[in-house]
């Protein structure tokens, strides 16, 4: 039950490789989830007939069911219907789950924007679509960038569930090192430190973004 340096040294390259996999999945999932979240969020904000009911039901359902079951559902369910690789399922599950949370945030951001912005854009002759793209979405995203950055750290945490569908990411590596050497403290402490490093760097980026947007705000005020 102590930290074993020998095991740490022999398994460190494996851990680094696994960290690479975790970062890779997290980054891909974040990029797609933000786009997907903005898309669904603006549909839920605009409420076009018909589609709106489907997208809001989707957001409601995916926000209120556990990610692990969703992953199992997609992985074992979809692989019966068509041949898809585990990595695609992994990204799809993360995007569907966390995209729903981002969509709800973005919708809230869009609703909090002053109605005058939209009307001013219409008065200047912009179409509905252009108003969304050029005026409303940028403002909404800057408003909710804090919660989006929180979602980023949650997505990094969520990638740990991908170990159950054969993806060799960080938690899986810790699990494997532990079952090979039986050194729980060494294996899991290493993984925990790496996760903390990722989390703290995301927090750092969040703070930098905060400072930048504050500066922008001050400039526009003066």
């Amino acid at each position, binding site marked *: *039950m102590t930290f074993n340096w020998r095991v740490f040294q022999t398994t460190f390259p494996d851990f680094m490789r696994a960290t690479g996999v975790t970062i890779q999945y997290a980054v891909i999932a974040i990029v797609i989830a933000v786009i997907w979240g903005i898309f669904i969020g603006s549909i839920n904000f605009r409420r076009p007939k018909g589609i709106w009911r489907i997208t809001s039901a989707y957001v*409601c*359902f995916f926000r*209120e*069911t*556990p*990610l*692990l*079951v*969703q992953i*199992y*559902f997609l*992985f*074992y*369910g979809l692989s*019966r219907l068509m041949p898809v690789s585990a990595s695609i399922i992994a990204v799809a599950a993360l995007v569907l789950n966390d995209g729903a949370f981002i969509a709800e945030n973005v919708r809230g951001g869009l609703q909090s924007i002053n109605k005058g912005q939209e009307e001013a854009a219409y008065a200047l002759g912009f179409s509905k679509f252009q108003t969304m793209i050029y005026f409303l979405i940028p403002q909404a995203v800057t408003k909710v960038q804090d919660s989006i950055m929180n979602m980023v*750290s949650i997505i990094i*945490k*969520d*990638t*740990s*569930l991908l*170990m*159950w569908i054969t993806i060799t990411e960080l*938690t899986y590596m*810790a*699990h494997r090192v*532990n079952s090979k050497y039986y050194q*729980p*403290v060494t*294996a*899991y402490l290493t*993984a*925990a430190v790496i*996760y*903390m490093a*990722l*989390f*703290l760097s995301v927090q750092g980026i969040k703070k930098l973004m905060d400072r930048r947007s504050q500066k922008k705000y001050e400039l526009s005020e003066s």
Partner: protein
Amino acid sequence: MSLASHKMLFFDTLIKSALPVTLQLILGSFVGACLIGLIGGIIRGMKVPVLSQILGVYVQLCRGIPDMLVLLFLYAAMTKGSTYSIAVLGISLIQGAYIMEIIKGGILSVDKGQWEAAKTLSLPFLTTLFRIVIPQVMLVALPALIGQLVLLIKGTSVASTIGCLELTKRAVIAMSGYSNALIVYGYVLVIFFIMCHALTVVGKKLEKYVVERIMGDKYER
């Protein structure tokens, strides 16, 4: 699948034998998390010197490390205890940190005048804390606590991976008998959705009530 096997899967396997375990898991870890959160939250809200910094680090750790890793570590490191108690321990440790933040925010949001008024009435410290401050904190924190409870319910599915026989694990076992994942996991999703959605609806109602209560006449519909 025939109707009889649907019935057997849904009612006998999932509802009758798995749901009670999940409910126990939820109850146990929520009580544990609330205990940790209340004690830690009071310490952090009161800004007790060294302890509140240590708890601050603990909260950061719980926010950064996935529950999966914590549960696997506890499962590997603990030589005693059933999978149920390990799961309760792990989940309440992690969720306790979040509840701690909620309680801390609530205590900091209570007006300073309340403390001063209690002091002029020469109420002892603990009476002030438990009879005056905490009731106000609870009113403010209740909607957030319910939101956290929803996250906790979703978190219990992770306990299946260390072998705790709750909904998800029963579904994994049932997979070998039924083999149709869309149906088996679909049922699990539906059960979780019903539990969480009911709580979310209650939470939204409560939030409205709390806002009305705090804002009083200033609240506009």
